[in-house]
């Protein structure tokens, strides 16, 4: 059974159908890439799953449970996390605090009405924060204000925040956009590590074909909100409809 399954998912903005009957299953432990031209509905699709938007119709099931229309904090608690397309951080808090808050999010409940217990006394949270910061190589910068990080580091902080909420399924919306080739390589390495070490299931929206063909087990191609192909990378490479719609016939 798929970890995530959407059925006939539709999202309309007024007259515009941004997501048009998307039915897709994502298998546990795989990396699934979603590609498609700008405006294809990739971000909207993610938003409908993560609860930022309510789908107009259709259902979303996660781990066998219907989570359609659940608000974001609940989908996160279910085990779905996302790193935003434009880094969404807490600008004047330290790098460490940025990750710490996500680690506390994963603790939901353990500090219910405990207003007086210090953060530093939550050992599991401290450990997780450190582990995540080390995995994105930001531990040395933990006392820096998040807003003063260079762009690439902000993106990696964004990933660390998403990871600290201990997801089973991680959405990454264009994680390498705007990164230097070096940073991109690091991020790709990180993605592969995450899958292997944490057994994460990853849904990756990406434009960089090199990245996609390196990490994806399966590729879903969206075009005007609908799936036009959903297959292994080798097959997508040879798919004429995809060549036509998305790549304008260019070689990949």
């Amino acid at each position, binding site marked *: 059974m798929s970890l995530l399954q959407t059925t006939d998912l539709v999202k309309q903005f007024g007259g515009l159908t941004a997501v048009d009957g998307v039915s897709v299953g994502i298998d546990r432990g795989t990396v699934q890439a979603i590609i498609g031209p700008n405006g294809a509905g990739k971000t909207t699709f993610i938003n409908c799953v*993560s609860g930022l938007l309510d789908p107009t119709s259709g259902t979303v099931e996660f781990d066998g449970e219907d989570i359609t229309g659940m608000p*974001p*904090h609940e989908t996160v608690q279910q085990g779905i996390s996302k790193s935003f397309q434009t880094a*969404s951080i807490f600008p*004047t808090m330290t790098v460490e605090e940025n990750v710490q808050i996500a680690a506390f999010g994963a603790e939901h409940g353990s500090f219910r009405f*405990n*207003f007086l217990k*210090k953060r530093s006394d939550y050992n599991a949270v401290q450990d997780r924060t450190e582990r995540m910061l080390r995995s994105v190589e930001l531990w040395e910068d933990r006392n820096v204000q998040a807003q003063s990080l260079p762009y690439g580091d902000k993106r990696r902080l964004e990933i660390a*925040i998403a990871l600290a909420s201990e997801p089973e399924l991680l959405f990454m919306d264009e994680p390498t956009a705007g990164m230097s080739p070096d940073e991109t390589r690091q991020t790709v390495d990180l993605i592969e590590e995450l899958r292997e070490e944490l057994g994460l299931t990853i849904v990756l929206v990406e434009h960089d074909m090199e990245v996609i063909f390196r990490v994806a087990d399966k590729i879903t191609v969206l075009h005007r909100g609908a799936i036009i192909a959903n297959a292994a990378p080798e097959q997508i490479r040879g798919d004429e409809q995809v060549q036509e719609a998305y790549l304008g016939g260019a070689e990949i």
Partner: protein
Amino acid sequence: MSTETEGEGGSVGATGLTDSDAVLMIASAVALFSLPWVLVDGFGIVAEMLDFSIGGYVGLPSLILIYGIVVIGYNLLLGYTGLLSFGHAAFFGTGAYVAGVVSQSVGSPIVMVLAGIAVATLIAWPIGWVSIRRTGVYFAVITLTFGQMLYFWALGPGSWLTNGDNGFSEVGTGPILGTFELDSAVFPNIGFLQSYTYEYVFIAILALLALWIANRILKSPYGLIFEALGQNQQRVSFVGLNVQRYKLMAFIISAVFAGAGGALFIMHENYVHPNTAYYWIQSGDFVIMTILGGAGSLVGPVFGAFIFEYVANVLSGLSLPVIGAIGSLWRIVLGAVFVVIVWTFPKGVYPGVRDFLVRRGARDALDRLSDRVRNRGGESE
């Protein structure tokens, strides 16, 4: 940030100098317990020298700390969570009336404060629940409306309880723990400690407690979440935290402090009127005190309360050349003070002065270091 400690990681700016709880509490205790002497006797001496009545009076320190307690809590909402409430008089006034009513049967100040807190918390729940569903200006206006609803209730339909426009004066505050009369001096035989009444000691202890609790809240997961809410709400929900729940918590916590302040207020004044309890200007004063002293710093708002009440109660008694008596024009003076302070210290008095001192301290340290390096250079030649 040279004072940062290892384990804490140190939150930027907000706690820079006060990372150690013990240092904070001791410094605050010293400050609070010297306040009456400084304000009444110290300022009084200066006043005599200048022949200008700028000294505080017995009672003013209590009033400052009462508002101090309110704004310590209010700041958790405004300074950290970033929610601008224009209706916190609702909880202040409720604390006052409830404590007043309770005092008619139980005069214990401790019971009065607890009762004031309880009912303020109780009404903060529904008011907060509705208000936090909107943000920004709408949140401010909704809270303002709730405050004004209570104001008109206290003037009209609630008169049976509040005595309406005549004000509530049947306050039967008894001694603390059945022993210490609020108005008596703690050290009746020591001349320069006459301004230390049991009332002041009681209020100062509660103010210390308020600081301690607020400090612990800020260092708990809640503090982190409140600050995060002030910066990026969407991200807070995307780490799995229920934004509404934590906003409501911040709202209710701030109401607890306001309720306590209200109860102490009626104890101190022996009287409360809808104008000082519930009127929207009272809510606005909390905002001014907080911003004046430094929203987003734990102790800053207390300095704001100090400046505010000093202008309102002492400077208003001054008589200036040309202008004449300040009297009821004190709000104009306050306005000027506010503008000057916000102009010089955009973050408020306390963070501004602290940053200034830290920067100067760092510069001095650098100077000393470079002196030493130069001297050593001289020796080796």
